[in-house]
């Protein structure tokens, strides 16, 4: 008997939806591959960096139920360390610079995580916010960050010592590759048994504890993973934009990444992508318009609207509609 005949209807549906999802991702990748010929590559790279940042944040909030208000610290740490390494050691290739920055964020994530998971809910948010503010002050004072000016003129260098990234198009494909690796890690994590336990903790922590899971370890691993990927986003951003600035460490940045995730849809894989796309587009467009000074007010208004009446976010709402139609 062939296996196809033994499939139950439920399994068939599962297989179909997988196929559909595969096609959908393939379509997305093909769009991403031709995008730089249609839109401005610098803008696209910015969106991709922030999409990775928001996806990393969403791994924590959407799947572990932990609201970090300090993710700017990881973005900035990755950026500063990478920038410092590449600027001081010209022989270093960009991928090694990015790796160092990402490792630094990972280490910082471990320290922050160990402290922050000792408190729950709202306290967790306040602890992460306070710790990242401490990093902000350290970055102002530290000798290697350039203080208020930040680091400028970081060389893009040559990937593996072979491919020059000075061309925006090659830089774009480099960022796209990094984004896909990061996104792939998140996608695999969410759908792994580990990810399922994480969701169980989010839904009912006491129950997960009573089932014998070491909840703190699960949370810590999620926190470190999220911090690492946020650092990867920051490091990549520094390489392609050739600067690391204090803005990345400011608590406004931690707020922005929350907004991107909330607007796109918390706990959906594609939500942070959509959200960061919209927020970055908005910021870029507004900066050139007479409303340039009102960016933070407009972001605040979107925040309030999202919380009041749009809590599932764009992707979340679409998923609801799709589910209703096909049930």
């Amino acid at each position, binding site marked *: 008997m062939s296996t196809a005949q033994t499939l139950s209807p439920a399994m068939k549906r599962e297989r179909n939806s997988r196929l559909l999802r595969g096609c959908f991702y393939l379509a997305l990748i093909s769009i991403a591959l031709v995008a730089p010929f249609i839109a401005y590559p610098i803008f696209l790279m910015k969106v991709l960096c922030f999409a990775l940042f928001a996806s990393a944040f969403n791994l924590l909030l959407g799947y572990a139920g932990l609201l970090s208000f300090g993710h700017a610290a990881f973005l900035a740490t990755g950026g500063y360390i990478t920038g410092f390494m590449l600027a001081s050691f010209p022989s270093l290739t960009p991928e090694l610079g990015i790796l160092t920055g990402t490792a630094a964020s990972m280490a910082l994530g471990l320290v922050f995580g160990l402290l922050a998971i000792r408190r729950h809910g709202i306290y967790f*948010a306040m602890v992460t916010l306070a710790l990242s503010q401490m990093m902000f002050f350290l970055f102002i004072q530290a000798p290697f960050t350039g203080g208020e000016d930040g680091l400028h003129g970081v060389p893009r260098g040559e990937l593996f010592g072979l491919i020059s990234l000075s061309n925006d198009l090659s830089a774009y494909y480099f960022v796209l590759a990094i984004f896909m690796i990061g996104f792939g890690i998140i996608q695999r994590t969410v759908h792994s048994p580990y990810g399922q336990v994480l969701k169980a903790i989010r839904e009912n922590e006491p129950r997960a504890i009573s089932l014998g899971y070491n909840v703190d370890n699960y949370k810590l691993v999620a926190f470190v993973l999220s911090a690492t990927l946020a650092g990867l986003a920051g490091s990549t951003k520094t390489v392609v934009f050739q600067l690391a600035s204090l803005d990345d460490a400011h608590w406004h940045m931690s707020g922005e990444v929350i907004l991107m995730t909330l607007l796109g849809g918390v706990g959906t894989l594609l939500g942070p992508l959509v959200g960061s796309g919209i927020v970055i587009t908005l910021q870029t467009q507004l900066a050139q318009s007479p409303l340039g000074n009102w960016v933070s007010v407009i972001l605040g208004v979107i925040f309030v609207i999202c919380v009041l009446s749009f809590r599932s976010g764009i992707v979340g709402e679409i998923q609801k509609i799709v589910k209703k139609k096909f049930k």
Partner: protein
Amino acid sequence: MTMILGVPLTMFMGQLILGLINGAFYALLSLGLAVIFGLLKIVNFAHGAQYMLGAFTALLGLRYLGLNYWLALLVVPLVVGGLGILTERFFLRRIAHLDDLYGLLMTFGLALIIEGSLANFFGVSGARYPTPESLSGGFQLGFMFLPTYRAWVLVAAIGMCFATWFIIERTRLGSYLRAGTENPMLMQNFGVNMPQLITLTYGFGVALAAFAGVLAAPLYSVSPSMGSNLLIVVFAVVVIGGMGSILGAVITGLAMGLIEGLTKVYYPEAASTVIFVVMAIVLTLRPAGLFGKEA
């Protein structure tokens, strides 16, 4: 000259008083946060913006209406507290049934709106609020010169903390509030109008922030971002002390101000980070906070 641990006495006492004044602001603000959190289960991220709004209202009142300092101290908390009541009624009540985190996000959005709007209308640079004439001058204490206004701020802030403690711990209204913190449903069944109590509590917490703002106006320059940077430090203070008790919030606030002042004397580079370091230490040794009840 008298020296204390290798530092001139004048400088030592000066920084100590400055630290104590900063600590008084931490105490007032964390007190307001604790009162709001107790009943609404919301961490009021707009607290810093409301503090700033207090200072700004006093400044604009003086400029355009000739509102003097003493009247401002009375009127401004009422006005800003009234705005707080509207905020609760039209925004926070709608999300009261949701996870606590949404309250934090909502008030964060509101803070962005308030700060951004003021920055657009009045610019980001600060303005001076003149020290009221009746409080100018100072005392020569022998070892240091103490400006009268600073002494007044200390007295007023601690007095307000005490008044709040008295209202909550020793009056009938306060007993409703404490009981409501424990079990709002039961209080509602007893015939206490809980929604009204919640609205008033939020208004009161916001008024406390505005009061602190008016006190701060002649000390620090009045600017749109004066509140948000302060608020994050206050968050750390709240994590250190826990939001369980009123006296705990006040003691922690004052103590953190003193520690910050001492750090300025002995190791100025760490002055802006010392409170966060203390927070990390407290989290390691006593995760629930010094006065906290949360497990």
